[in-house]
């Protein structure tokens, strides 16, 4: 694509079920794009974002990815936020030879499946089994957990992926899953299931879900007197979690890409810039969106040929990209190689973080 701007497509869930994730990702992306443009753009060309709403519908994601690539002629498409939406755009990307990049499509088989690596698909987040495994190991190491219960989000493949990996690792290490249950997205009431858990013997709760429900679940669990440690994934990373759970946010831990307490100037600058623009603390989707745009911009600037294929080659060769959510290389499966961070609120509700 020629012209005086570099067009990047945003194909996100801005309405419907998972609008929260799409909207948050776009906030991060738009902030990053502003920064890149303020710094002179890429080779003197400004980034121009072309943004569409998938309505949280996979077919619409396909339609819009096609539109972005064929009619708007963008050089790369960012989004959708969910794995299902992302998967729906990958065949289009392969056909049109334009890369698609997601900051939050975490399912294991997004970038690689039985048929090999999806050449034009990238992501900047680690995958589900990575987090689930890390959480299981943490549970064993930190709490000497032998028995765990799992409460997952039945409508989310992310949650299922984390739960599956956790279960596998935990039981392989001799642990036992004594009970497992699931809620549907948007659930408000966890009293029933927590009352049920309360009547059982276990050491930790694994709650791989998003903060929207997790905050309520944590609060209701603690209100009912369920005192075991609660573990989660990067879906917990939002100020809303603390707001919802309030004073009951105790003994809660989750795997994440970075810690907002990290004194690395990159992280602190990002948090400051985000708060300045949106007057709210960033969450994981914000940070990942931010990194994804920077990651794409980096690829575009390194690409010798400013085409989809050129960008694809550059992205695949990314080494040592330093983002807010960690410094990483892109591996042969187009996954970022990142370190995991554990964020915790201890028994008194004090925040801490440790490297995994």
């Amino acid at each position: 694509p020629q012209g005086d701007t570099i067009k990047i497509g945003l194909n996100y869930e801005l309405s419907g079920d998972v609008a929260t994730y799409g909207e948050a990702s776009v906030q991060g992306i738009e902030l990053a794009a502003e920064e890149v443009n303020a710094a002179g753009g890429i080779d003197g060309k400004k980034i121009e974002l072309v943004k569409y709403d998938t309505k949280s519908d996979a077919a619409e994601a396909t339609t819009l990815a096609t539109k972005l690539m064929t009619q708007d002629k963008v050089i790369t498409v960012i989004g959708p936020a969910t794995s299902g939406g992302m998967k729906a755009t990958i065949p289009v990307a392969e056909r049109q030879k334009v890369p698609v990049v997601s900051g939050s499509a975490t399912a294991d088989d997004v970038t690689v499946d039985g048929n090999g690596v999806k050449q034009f698909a990238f992501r900047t987040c680690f995958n589900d089994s990575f987090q689930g495994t890390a959480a299981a190991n943490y549970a064993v190491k930190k709490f000497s957990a032998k028995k765990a219960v799992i409460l997952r989000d039945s409508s989310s493949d992310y949650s299922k992926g984390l739960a599956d990996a956790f279960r596998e690792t935990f039981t392989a290490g001799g642990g036992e899953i004594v009970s497992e249950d699931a809620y549907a997205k948007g659930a408000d009431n966890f009293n029933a299931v927590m009352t049920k858990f309360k009547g059982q013997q276990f050491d930790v709760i694994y709650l791989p879900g998003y903060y929207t429900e997790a905050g309520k679940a944590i609060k209701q669990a603690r209100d009912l007197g369920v005192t075991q440690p609660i573990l989660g994934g990067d879906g917990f990373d939002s100020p809303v979690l603390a707001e919802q759970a309030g004073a009951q946010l105790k003994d809660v831990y989750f795997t994440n890409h970075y810690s907002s307490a990290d004194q690395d100037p990159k992280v602190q600058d990002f948090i400051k810039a985000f708060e300045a623009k949106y007057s709210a603390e960033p969450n994981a989707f914000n940070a990942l969106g931010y990194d994804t745009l920077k990651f794409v911009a980096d690829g575009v600037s390194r690409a010798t040929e400013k085409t989809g294929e050129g960008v694809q080659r550059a992205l695949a060769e990314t080494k040592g990209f330093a983002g807010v959510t960690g410094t990483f290389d892109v591996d042969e499966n187009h996954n970022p190689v990142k370190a995991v961070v554990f964020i915790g609120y201890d028994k008194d509700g004090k925040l801490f973080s440790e490297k995994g």
Partner: protein
Amino acid sequence: MKNPLVRQALTLWVPLVLTYVIVLLLVQAGVVDAYMQVTIATICINIVLAVSLNLITGFTGQFSLGHAGFMAIGAYATALVTMRFDSIVGFIGGLLLGGIIAALVGFLIGLPTLRLRGDYIAIATLGMAEIIRILLQNFEFTNGAAGLSPVPQYMDWTWFFVLTVGSVMLIRNFVRSRQGRDAIAVREDEIAAESIGVNTTRSKVLAFTIGAFFGGVAGGMYASYFYVIKPEQFGFLKSIDILVIVVLGGLGSLSGSVIAAFLLAIISTLLQPFPGVRMILYALLLIVIMIFRPQGLLGNRELSLRLLPGLRKRRRDDAGTEAA
């Protein structure tokens, strides 16, 4: 124009074949680009969905809020079969199987619930669709919330054309036949229909089953074209989307459903550049259209070359002279 066969050829077959050939050529010449192809695919799927729901709700008068359930069954059946037997035979088999299972479920659900009246059927069908979705979300073989992907893509313009036109024609033939008139009688007055010998339960179940079959076929078309299916795509809001097309086109008007499917695609395209407010605009449009055109675009009339403006009487059904 006197000979009905000639007239039918001129007004029906010639335009259809021309449409097919022209679009085919345009696709090959690259004038119809990939995006327009996706849009056409969406329109075709929506036409089949809307026309089949119209049979149930518009013609037979059974208010169904569960059409997405049938669509889901068709989509999953097609996906599972073609993922295992990745061939054209597998695809056709999957599509048929999807339709048949959907029809079977429609039949089994319809038998007891169609005794209900009005809004109670709406809620029962809604419940059925939700149960189907929840089961798909929790079964192992459907891969839970993650859904199935990639489904081999067999749908192309030819298939879309054949399946869409075929579905519309079959449903049109149905509503313009003895069985169809029985169904319409049920809609108009169930007690009167029974009193003149119409087996109303049979009529309702038949319409419901046929509608479910084509709902399933539409699901199969969807799965095979969009290669990713997840349970959440077939939720309550999808059923509502289909209902919106049907009502917008006019309950009891097949051509209305077809036109509305196009119209909604156009509206959707026009709104795409405004992601922040598109849903607000869409909602406003919906309200305004309903206030100014509550009976839908065509009411219960059919669009035809003979429907001249100002002509109040509906065009007579020429079914009797149409024997093939």
